[in-house]
């Protein structure tokens, strides 16, 4: 699990790469996401382009980050889902609460419209 973080137009873009699964990867990812939400504007783009596999503990990280941003009137949106990650989101119907983008510019732009 590798995590990078950059900020653009007050939006935090976080790139995860590797397997977002139970154990060290999920612990790390949760910590990083909550730190970023805490410190910033709670406007988060989560780039999952290089996440090859995710399990339900990965989903719980996404959901807890979503809740954390919403308490600050922000949001988490998802960018570039791989096929297995997209299937997981659809199976659990979480596309109802996460906006999903295929372009980073559009994902960042989405926060301006609000």
């Amino acid at each position, binding site marked *: 699990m590798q995590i990078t973080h950059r900020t653009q137009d007050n939006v935090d873009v976080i790139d995860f790469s590797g397997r977002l699964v*139970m154990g060290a990867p999920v612990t790390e990812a949760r910590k990083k996401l909550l730190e970023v939400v805490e410190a910033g504007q709670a406007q988060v783009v989560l780039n999952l382009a290089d996440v090859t596999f995710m399990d*339900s503990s990965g989903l719980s990280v996404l959901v807890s980050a979503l809740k954390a941003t919403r308490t600050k009137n922000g949001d988490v949106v998802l960018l570039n889902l791989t096929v297995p990650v997209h299937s997981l989101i659809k*199976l659990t119907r979480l596309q109802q609460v996460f906006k999903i983008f295929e372009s980073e510019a559009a994902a960042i732009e989405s926060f301006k419209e609000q």
Partner: protein
Amino acid sequence: MKKLSLKINSDTENVELVTECVRALCLFTSLSQASVDGVQLAVTEAVNNVILHSYKGESSHPIWLTISLQDEYLTMSLSDTGVGMEPILLQADRSSVTEIEPDDVMRLDEGGRGLFLIKATMDKVNYHSDGGTHTLQMTKYFD
């Protein structure tokens, strides 16, 4: 019928070893890529549950997975000697976790999707305990 058994200790860092072996074995079947992703997800959730719930997060306990490749389906039998669970937890309809109220995100469950995902991706799932050994059996028919 081709058959192989795997054993790991209940350490989260070993889970991916099992799931990658399962993925490799799926290459001997006619499963589509999407179905293989589903099988890999099911086995990940099932092994995670054993570590987290049956062994209460303790490492160094044994977990066995036996994979049989039949002509028209594969079965995976996952066994552990932890506390196990009531089979009713699996038999119950677990789809309520997908009934989401988009306007009330704060009430969204953070967990509770594992058994649902196992049932959603596999064709047959059952669970039984025998003399302290608990076994989750999962079957997937080829496309």
